[in-house]
């Protein structure tokens, strides 16, 4: 497979979790609305100086947050490696069992078709 084919597979359309459809219809029935891009556009002009002030005030918590993020990334890496190993083990098991089945089928076919 080339990279384009791999990407088509990896980025294929994905079903949302079950209940998504019902949630959308419920929100519509409840009269929920969403902001359009025109109203969203007003926000950044107001938010920027506010954000700058908040950053100064809460600067100290930023370092703690960085540490927590680092720990979270390490845990994520460990979890990913665990998943990788488990999936690899399942693949190997599946491959070997499949190979055994193929051999059994070949033998059965041979036994049925060979002259008596």
């Amino acid at each position, binding site marked *: 497979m080339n990279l384009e084919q791999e990407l088509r597979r990896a980025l294929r359309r994905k079903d949302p979790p079950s209940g998504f459809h019902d949630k959308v219809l419920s929100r519509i029935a409840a009269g929920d609305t969403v902001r359009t891009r025109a109203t969203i556009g007003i926000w950044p002009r107001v938010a920027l100086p506010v954000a700058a002030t908040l950053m100064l005030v809460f600067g100290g918590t930023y370092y703690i947050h960085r540490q927590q993020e680092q720990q979270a990334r390490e845990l994520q890496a460990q979890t990913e490696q*665990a*998943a990788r190993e488990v999936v690899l*083990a*399942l693949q190997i*098991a599946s491959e070997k069992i499949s190979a055994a089945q193929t051999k059994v089928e070949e*033998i059965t076919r041979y036994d049925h078709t060979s002259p008596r």
Partner: protein
Amino acid sequence: MTTRALGNYCLIIAALLVPRTALAQGARLQLDHLNKLAEKATETVDVSADTAMLKQAAGFLAGKGSDTEKMRELLGGITGIYVKSFEFGGPNMYAESDIDIIRKQVSGPGWSRVVSVREKRELTEIYFWKERETTGGLVVISAEDNELTVVNVVGRVDLASLGALGPMIPKLPVALGKGTPK
């Protein structure tokens, strides 16, 4: 000492003398004797996934698509997966005795061999472990000239789902045909 007490004493001594590698705890095998093969292998896969690691993996796989959901469902009944797989640069890098140590473990109560296929240079054996009509484990031994793979799955193994990861049948027949067991 009475005869009975002496007999019990001998039994205890005998149990202590049996090599640890020969004992299997239920469906879980001891495979550490294969570790020495890593030195000679060009590639080694060594996975020891216990319940905690499987839970971690299942958590990671959650919500990542229908294929991984199938794997996650499969993992639900499994309490351990142990794989030792070695690929060598040439033949005769492992001994038949390395496999015999495993066969000894799967000859005990609860174990039954369901597949044994031996062709010129390839051997595949599959064993199930059952307790009270519930399949609680599986062992696959695959031996070729330049490769040895042992897979031990402990727990409720859904073969149909495991097979869905690749081509598979729901039920494996009792050993037959050219690989008929010795």
